[in-house]
């Protein structure tokens, strides 16, 4: 093993912070202020002075520019400033991986990773602007009414279901597991709003095969985490969640527009997942709990399959509600409620929940959880992953 060239066990998440989560348009303050609040909370959680932060990493073209943040916070020395390319949630784990790389390389000592969203104050993800003309990749799809993530992920999910003989039952089980976990999480937008199979079946179609409850919410709020060396993290306030592995990337031509990824019905993790497990030195069966980015349930299903938790042709049997829930399902997923039922914070809330599972402080704690995985951004490109442990 070329141990010099890995982040394994050299870095840890030492602090987590989240603002209150709001329904879309519900944030009473500006998006930038939400970002600052989350950073303050994360630094306080870690027990470090804010002015000790010397690195910033984010993803999905976060509007809250790193230099504005560093200036607003009066950081004496910004040593690392980094943006993970690509939209959607594909860069959540990637931003942590980039922060980790910066720490191992000696660029910075305390990197904050944040994501802030106030869709009420800016454009919405689920709506297409009323433009007269469009060029580039969207020119091949928008004029035909195929313009939103729900619509492209539905096309790929439909093909996946056809190829592997999967029914809507699998999608319903994923949605119900996320809602189930939100019922013990007072932070969750859907706290107090359980989802029955009947509710699921009777909800309106967004785009077949997705009902309303297969789709992520749109929310306002902000989240932040503090990444530092494992050595420094040991002396801080919280039990460190050490990075066991991080990986990012995209498979062959997955960026080809007009639905031309040669491997079509894929979550885009087929080359990435083996790299992740190799760095961690573990196998899928060793993972105790996973937070799997839910833009849409179909992409969650494909991700779990491509991370080796079940064979694609066994998906029908694997994706059962009882297999997906804490404390003792085969693979408890999205134990805070995730993007479907806690808050759509572009998956940074999933990373925070993965840290809680390692700390033992989740509201849906998995018994004796040691190895905690995050999958960021299925069916987009690029995507990323991480694995944490105590």
């Amino acid at each position, binding site marked *: 093993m070329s141990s010099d060239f890995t982040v394994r066990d050299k870095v840890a998440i030492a602090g987590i912070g989240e603002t209150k989560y709001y329904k879309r348009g519900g944030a009473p303050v500006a998006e930038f202020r939400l970002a600052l609040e989350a950073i303050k909370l994360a630094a306080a959680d870690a027990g470090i002075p804010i002015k000790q932060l010397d690195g910033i990493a984010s993803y999905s073209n976060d509007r809250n520019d790193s230099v504005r943040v560093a200036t607003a916070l009066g950081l004496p020395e910004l040593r690392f400033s980094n943006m993970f390319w690509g939209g959607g949630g594909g860069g959540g784990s990637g931003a942590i991986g980039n922060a980790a790389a910066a720490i191992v390389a000696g660029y910075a000592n305390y990197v904050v990773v944040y994501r802030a969203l106030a869709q009420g104050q800016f454009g919405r993800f*689920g*709506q*297409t602007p*009323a*433009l*007269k*003309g*469009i*060029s*580039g*990749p*969207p*020119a*091949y*799809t*928008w*004029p*035909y*009414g*195929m*313009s*939103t993530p*729900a*619509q492209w992920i*539905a*096309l*790929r999910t*439909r*093909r996946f279901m*056809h190829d592997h003989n999967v029914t809507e039952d699998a999608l319903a089980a994923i949605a119900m597991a996320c809602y189930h976990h939100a019922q013990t999480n007072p932070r969750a937008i859907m706290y107090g709003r359980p989802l029955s199979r009947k509710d699921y079946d009777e909800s*309106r*179609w*967004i*785009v*077949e*095969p997705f009902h309303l409850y297969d789709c992520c919410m749109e929310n306002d709020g902000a989240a932040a985490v503090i990444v530092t060396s494992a050595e420094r993290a040991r002396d801080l306030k919280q039990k460190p969640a050490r990075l066991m592995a991080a990986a990012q990337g995209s498979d062959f*031509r997955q960026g*080809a*527009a*007009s*639905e*031309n990824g040669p491997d*079509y*019905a894929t979550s885009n993790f087929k080359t990435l997942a083996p790299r992740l497990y190799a760095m961690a030195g573990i196998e899928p069966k060793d993972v105790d709990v996973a937070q799997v980015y839910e833009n849409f349930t179909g992409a969650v299903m494909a991700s779990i399959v491509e991370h080796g938790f079940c064979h694609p042709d066994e998906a029908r049997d694997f994706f059962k509600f009882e297999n997906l829930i804490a404390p003792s399902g085969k693979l408890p997923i999205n134990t805070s409620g995730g993007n479907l039922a806690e808050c759509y914070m572009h998956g940074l809330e999933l990373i925070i929940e993965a840290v809680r599972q390692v700390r033992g402080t989740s509201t849906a704690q998995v018994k004796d959880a040691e190895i905690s995985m995050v999958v960021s951004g299925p069916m987009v490109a690029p995507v990323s992953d991480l694995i944490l442990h105590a």
Partner: protein
Amino acid sequence: MAEARDENTRSYLPAGMPAPVPAGDGVDREFWEGARRHELMIQRCKDCGTFQMTPEWICHNCHSLEVGWHRSSGRGRIYSFERVWHPAHPALKGACPYLVVVVALPDSGNVRLVGNLLGDPMQEVRFDAPVEAVFEDHEGYTLIQWRAL
């Protein structure tokens, strides 16, 4: 077009959808100009024969910069499909449901195009069903739609 759902525009979807505009750098001009002539033009490498969508300045297989064009017969097979119920664009209010299909072109390396399947939006759609291209003319541009065979 017999299958047009919109009386005024004689198109499958209502007026007000964004029009495709060829990229400013010219990379896909031939694709859109071909559609205007009712020809389905797919990019094909002059050196190694690889087809690719969407158009690019280089062949992804052999890295030749000599990428040319091949006229497809317009016969394809349904690779995936969806029935859309929620209008994500203001022009689509009242136009749902509608059908979107991904069509693979066997005569062009199975590259894929996205379009609408003409006719009844509640019709049964089958994977791998044969379809053919229908050129839907608009003011200044042409869309490529699909008819079940």
